């Protein structure tokens, strides 16, 4: 969207009502300049994303009388401009910075919605030249930014927006319009104001669950230069020199997006084999096939492929951004899937990475968790696994390279193991739910708690199996719990684990293991497990089947299921 088309939308605002749009948001705006152009851009952009903005701007230059009184609503934006060309209270009044910070603090305490506050950017020049620490304006900006950081670390609803970065994108000369500043008290050019409005709205997207989640990418002339079907895997432009270096670094930029949790997918018109060859043989590829959560390479229209990708990743079409150098493909997707965000692409590949970064406001997150960071990778791992399993249903286990790591009474695992006992329904023999404290107590009273981490060559599943054995006498032990997350079904891990558990119990001097399988509506997948592992059925009452296993005979004769599973797995203890 250009500033002009945004203004065009904004001009239609008055003819619309709240019920015309899917969502609405009340937005407070507090500034120290004429912000009517900023308001127009906020309105136009909100409308373009399906949000009816109920904008509540603070009256011109009224913020210092009652800052807290002007904020509130779903979100509050606070933007103060400090520049070397106009005398400002921030500089002339030594107490002003503190007063404003106090107002923000009060606002943060009173408001439940987020308050996004722009930092005061440093000046490119000023009367003090390079004597920065003597310049009152520089000191005021530093004091404000430090105070703001301190406030944001105490108050989680205060979000710092780095105005400096936005200014750097434009530079002082194209970001500031001095004619507008002196004539109308409008401190920024329209382009900078438009970019500011986009960045600010990103926080509203995050708040309303509207942030984008996935970038769908074309391949030819998007991830590399040239057409792979014609040039071949080694002939595409990728790697040292122009334009290959630009494409390589665009891939690298995408990789960093993936690392912060943005999903990547491919929608390309190509022969899959040609593309596979690039992934396998071109040494300059920065993105691996596993980095993509979903891949559609065929000659069908891209809109259909993007719809399938959304289904596969289980995300909405409205959380996808489609990047393709080909205008016809972009138009096809825009026409068929209006929910997908389809930005124009720069004509030259050296602009791709910058273009990508300029659009990251669409993916704004209020904070980033460790899980978010892993998310992008896990989808790709899972897709790669599915491909291997589908290609070789009989021999996939050897190709996955499954490794099982078994720990015994490890205190650091108890919190996760308790969570597993509470969440696991399908492969769960007894469906007993335990808190962390209960597990701790059991370990102290002599139970053996086995926590199992499973990984394969595509990635790590983490702790996904739990076995608990409780002594009943000197010679007899009961398998109290045996459960496994459905994410690692069909790997044989349960057999490797029961084998280890039984060996360990035998070494501890036990002769007999008792076990129960308690039927629930959901635990069908675990019902055949005990007999297949070598347990003998000794009784049945209502939903409970009781089993028994003699450890002395077990060691001599293992079931085929057990031997088979063990031959494909590596077990670490």
């Amino acid at each position, binding site marked *: 969207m250009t*500033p002009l088309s945004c*203004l*065009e939308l904004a*001009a239609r605002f008055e003819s619309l009502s709240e019920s015309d749009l899917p969502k609405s948001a009340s937005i407070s705006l507090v500034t120290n300049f004429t912000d009517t*152009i900023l308001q*127009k851009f906020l309105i136009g952009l909100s409308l373009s994303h399906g949000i009816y903005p109920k904008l509540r701007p603070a009256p011109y230059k009224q913020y210092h009388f009652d800052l807290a009184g002007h904020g509130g609503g779903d979100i509050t934006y606070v933007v103060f401009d400090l520049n070397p060309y106009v005398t400002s209270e921030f500089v002339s009044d030594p107490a002003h910075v503190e007063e404003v910070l106090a107002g923000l603090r009060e606002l943060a305490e009173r408001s439940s919605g987020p308050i996004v506050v722009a930092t005061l950017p440093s000046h490119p020049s000023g009367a003090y030249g390079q004597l920065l620490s003597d310049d009152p304006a520089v000191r005021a900006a530093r004091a404000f930014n430090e105070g703001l950081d301190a406030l944001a670390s105490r108050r989680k609803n205060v979000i710092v927006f780095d105005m400096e970065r936005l200014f750097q994108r434009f530079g002082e000369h194209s970001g500031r319009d001095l004619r*507008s500043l002196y*004539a*109308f008290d409008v401190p920024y*050019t329209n382009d900078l104001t438009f970019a500011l409005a986009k960045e600010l709205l990103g926080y509203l997207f995050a708040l309303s669950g509207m942030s984008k989640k996935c970038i769908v990418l074309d391949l030819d002339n998007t991830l590399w230069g040239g057409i792979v079907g014609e040039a071949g895997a080694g002939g595409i432009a990728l790697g040292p020199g122009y334009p290959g270096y630009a494409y390589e670094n665009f891939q690298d930029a995408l990789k960093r997006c993936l690392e912060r949790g943005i999903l990547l997918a491919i929608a390309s018109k190509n022969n899959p084999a040609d593309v596979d060859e690039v992934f396998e043989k071109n040494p300059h590829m920065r993105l691996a096939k596993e980095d993509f959560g979903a891949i559609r390479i065929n000659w069908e229209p891209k809109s259909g492929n993007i719809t399938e990708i959304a289904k596969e990743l289980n995300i909405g079409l409205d959380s996808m951004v489609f990047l393709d150098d080909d205008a016809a493909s972009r138009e096809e997707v825009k026409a068929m899937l209006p929910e997908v965000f389809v930005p124009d692409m720069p004509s030259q590949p050296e602009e791709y990475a910058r273009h990508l970064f300029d659009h990251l406001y669409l993916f704004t997150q209020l904070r980033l968790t460790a899980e978010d960071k892993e998310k992008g990778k896990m989808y790709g791992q899972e897709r790669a696994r599915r491909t291997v399993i589908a290609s070789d249903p009989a021999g996939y286990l050897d190709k996955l390279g499954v490794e099982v790591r078994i720990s015994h009474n490890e205190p650091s695992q108890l919190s996760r193991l308790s969570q597993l006992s509470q969440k696991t329904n399908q492969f769960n023999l007894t469906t007993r739910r335990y808190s962390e404290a209960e597990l701790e107590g059991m370990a102290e009273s002599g139970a053996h708690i086995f926590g199992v981490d499973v990984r394969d060559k595509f990635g790590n599943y983490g702790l996904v199996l739990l076995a608990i054995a409780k002594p009943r006498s000197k010679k007899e032990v009961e398998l109290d719990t045996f459960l496994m997350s459905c994410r690692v079904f069909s790997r044989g891990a349960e057999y490797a684990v029961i084998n280890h558990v039984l060996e360990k119990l035998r070494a501890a001097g036990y002769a007999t293991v008792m076990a129960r399988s308690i039927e629930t509506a959901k635990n069908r997948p675990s019902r055949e497990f005990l007999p297949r592992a070598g347990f003998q059925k000794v009784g049945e009452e209502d939903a409970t089947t009781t089993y028994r296993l003699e450890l002395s005979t077990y060691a001599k004769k293992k079931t085929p299921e057990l031997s088979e599973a063990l031959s494909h797995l590596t077990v670490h203890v």
Partner: protein
Amino acid sequence: MSKLTRIFASVLGVPEERVTPELSPENESAWDSLNAIILVTEIENAYAIRFTYDEAMGVKNFGDAMKLVESKGGNPNA
């Protein structure tokens, strides 16, 4: 539609046919002082030209804007 017509129609939110040389703040209420600033800056961006304050404030109707763009080497009909 010329670039110049598009700018006026978009910023003022009026149909293309409204944008005639006679269009002015007197006969179009959307042409207020805020939109006057936006019009000037968007014209400057679109044609990569720059007006002085007096030139910009001297624009009293769409016809004036066409003449001003032309005087700076832009083609108001393109």
